């Protein structure tokens, strides 16, 4: 454990203790313990972010600063699909599970012979799903549920068409399949499902089509719905009870899901959750963020629009909302609040050990809260070029606006930083508990924004703003380059140990390892390794296509491998993916990323690296049809 103090690494012991104390139902405890146990092994990668902390940190150090220059491709796999490939594969017990863009094929590969597909699941989906997806046809990954004595181990896949499928991990056959989101009303699924205990947590997408967001917990055994909680509306729908925000009443408590909206606007008010989850097994709290209110045109929705844009902590069993902190009340810029949640245990400035959750938000601010009760610990700018806020009032939690960069009808806002893409979007970042540094994949994009009125029609886009996006002040505005950064951040000191500009951003996120390395892929198709202590670029590889997923690592047969998806797309890639030219198309992404096509083209697959490319085919006879050579 290397002296790490992060929760995931401590969790297993605690859970066993809890189970012994009889606090958890037995089958529940077993499945949960199993997943925690699996997540602790270097050989597995069982969930987004590697373990429940979501820190995407691996204790593996076979690959390190000294030898990373010898990292070579070991083997590869194409999913057979284009469109952006987000997320990262799972590895469980020597089998890799691969997700892909629409129509969300799932592949299982045996790591002893990944050249032969163990099983594949190729769903037929309603192609209409394509036209209601906001930001390319992406998918952020799979979930693994380890099985118990009644039910086999399952791979769970969220489909763009709104269905959730549970496949037998052994053979890929369908175990259950439920409808979570209805594309006819504009609701899709891109989020990775998340397994806690025997629950499968599923989010929602579609706030650009007025979808009222919700999160749902399904019972892994039979697909039955255990709870469903919304971001807006009546307290009961949101899961707000008497003790909600009890330690921070200033954040707001009861009734606000209705009171902060005019009329029925909350019914089409957004607040989807399509980002990342984290979980604390001791507190039994699930962490995630709700997204932007709908429509983007703020004038159409007076009020604070609660509980969109909110860091949420829910009781895992009941779904009840224990605390919620709205980062961007009454959003005016699409600063959807769904970004990654990373749990760490660190000493605060006063030297007190704290259970923390750190969250680099779209709105340009990185928040660290006490994850037990939502106390605000720090709120730092992701970059000193943020101009929409002057500061966060640490008492109330309210970010104070610079009205110059607000938006409103009959007004074109200019030079707004961050842009709607935020200074951070769907990237899954990482945290090195040794160095107490977060490795942040940051956007550096600003915008002009002009709202317009439009009616709500279920299933149609409901945005109401025209955007131009371009590099932030540190970028190259002539050439539309310098649209991203990678930074190493200390949440306690608020300092950035190191920062480096990227041409188009590391949209997918980062991986940190005990080899003192931070890995990430860039939109322009480079896979890079830096010294995580000082940012020095130690190695890079040109992938077939740009990355919008994040790297993962695992050990197999004593060799450390690093995997990453290639396949450019996502919101920044829509111009490339759908061949768009109008700079305001793709909600403004086309203009900002106009030069991306000069570095990369579409693709869709996986690269797996190891030192000197070591791997199963070092014995070339593996998977040969025959080794017999006939000589005449």
């Amino acid at each position, binding site marked *: 454990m290397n002296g790490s103090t992060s929760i995931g690494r401590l969790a297993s012991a605690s859970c066993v203790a809890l189970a012994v104390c009889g606090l958890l139902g037995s089958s529940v405890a077993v499945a949960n313990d199993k997943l925690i146990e699996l997540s602790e092994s270097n050989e597995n990668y069982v969930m987004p972010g590697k373990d429940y902390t979501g820190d995407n940190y691996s204790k593996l150090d076979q690959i390190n600063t000294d030898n990373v220059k010898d990292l070579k491709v070991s083997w590869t796999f194409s999913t057979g699909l284009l469109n952006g490939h987000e997320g990262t594969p799972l590895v469980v017990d020597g089998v890799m599970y691969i997700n892909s863009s629409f129509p969300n094929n799932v592949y299982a590969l045996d790591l002893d012979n990944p050249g032969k597909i163990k099983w594949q699941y190729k769903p037929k989906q309603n192609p209409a799903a394509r036209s209601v997806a906001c930001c390319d046809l992406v998918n952020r990954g799979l979930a693994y549920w380890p099985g118990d004595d009644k039910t086999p181990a399952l791979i769970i896949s969220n489909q763009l068409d709104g269905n959730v499928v549970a496949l037998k991990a052994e053979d890929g056959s369908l175990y259950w399949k439920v409808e979570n989101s209805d594309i006819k009303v504009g609701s899709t699924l891109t989020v990775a499902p998340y397994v806690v205990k025997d629950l499968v947590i599923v989010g929602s997408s579609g706030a650009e089509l007025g979808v009222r967001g919700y999160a749902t917990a399904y019972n892994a055994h039979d697909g039955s719905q255990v709870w469903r909680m919304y971001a807006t509306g009546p307290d009961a729908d949101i899961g707000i009870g008497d003790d909600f925000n009890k330690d921070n009443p200033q954040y707001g408590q009861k009734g606000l899901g209705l009171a902060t909206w005019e009329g029925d606007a909350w019914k089409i008010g957004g607040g989807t959750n399509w980002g990342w989850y984290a979980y604390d097994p001791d507190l039994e709290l699930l962490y995630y963020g709700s997204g932007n209110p709908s429509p983007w045109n703020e*004038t159409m929705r*007076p009020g604070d629009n609660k509980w969109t844009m909110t860091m949420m902590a829910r009781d895992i069993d009941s779904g009840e909302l224990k605390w919620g902190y709205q980062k961007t009340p009454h959003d005016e810029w699409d600063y959807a609040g769904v970004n990654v949640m990373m749990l760490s245990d660190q000493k605060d400035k006063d030297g007190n050990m704290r259970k923390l959750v750190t969250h680099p938000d779209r709105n340009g601010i990185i928040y660290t809260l006490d994850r037990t009760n939502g106390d605000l610990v720090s709120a730092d700018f992701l970059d000193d070029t943020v*101009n929409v806020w002057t500061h966060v009032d640490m008492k109330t939690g309210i970010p104070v606006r610079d009205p*110059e960069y607000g938006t409103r009808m009959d007004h074109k806002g200019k030079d707004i930083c961050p842009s709607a893409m935020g200074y951070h979007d769907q990237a899954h970042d990482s945290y090195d508990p040794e160095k107490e540094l977060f490795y942040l994949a940051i956007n550096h994009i600003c915008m002009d924004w002009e709202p317009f009125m439009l009616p709500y029609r279920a299933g149609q886009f409901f945005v109401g703003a025209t955007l131009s996006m371009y590099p932030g002040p540190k970028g190259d505005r002539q050439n539309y380059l310098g649209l991203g950064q990678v930074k190493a951040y200390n949440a306690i000191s608020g300092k950035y140990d190191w920062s480096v500009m990227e041409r188009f951003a590391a949209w997918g996120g980062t991986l940190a390892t005990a080899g003192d390395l931070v890995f990430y892929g860039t939109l322009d198709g480079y896979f890079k390794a830096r010294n995580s202590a000082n940012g020095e670029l130690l190695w890079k590889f040109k992938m077939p296509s740009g990355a919008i997923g994040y790297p993962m690592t695992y050990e197999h047969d004593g060799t450390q491998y690093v995997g990453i998806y290639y396949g450019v797309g996502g919101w920044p890639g829509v111009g490339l993916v759908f061949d768009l030219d109008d700079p305001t198309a793709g909600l403004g992404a086309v203009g900002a990323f106009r030069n991306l096509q000069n570095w990369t083209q579409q693709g869709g697959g996986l690269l797996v690296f190891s030192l000197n490319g070591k791997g199963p085919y070092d014995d070339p006879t593996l998977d040969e049809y025959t080794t017999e050579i006939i000589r005449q």
Partner: protein
Amino acid sequence: MKLTAKATGAVLATAAALLISTAGAFAYDGTNCKAPGNCWEPKPGYPEKVKGSKYDPKHDPEELAKQGNSIKEMEARNAARTKHFQETGEWVYDVDKL
């Protein structure tokens, strides 16, 4: 780059300077809350409520009801699927075949 209210430093100083020099509409700052967490105020010249104003989106209640109805129907179909599965051990997605 701390930006708590009490923080000082070059960045914040710049930001503060900006705030003062800024023209245009005011922004709410959370100091005039109707209740904790309910702090929004309209920008000067913009309505407190859009209904009846020139920015009235005139939502069609039928459209607004569609999501809720769809979810109710999906939940009912899912419940029927799970019930059948619990009873038979067989998952049937097509509810017409249950």
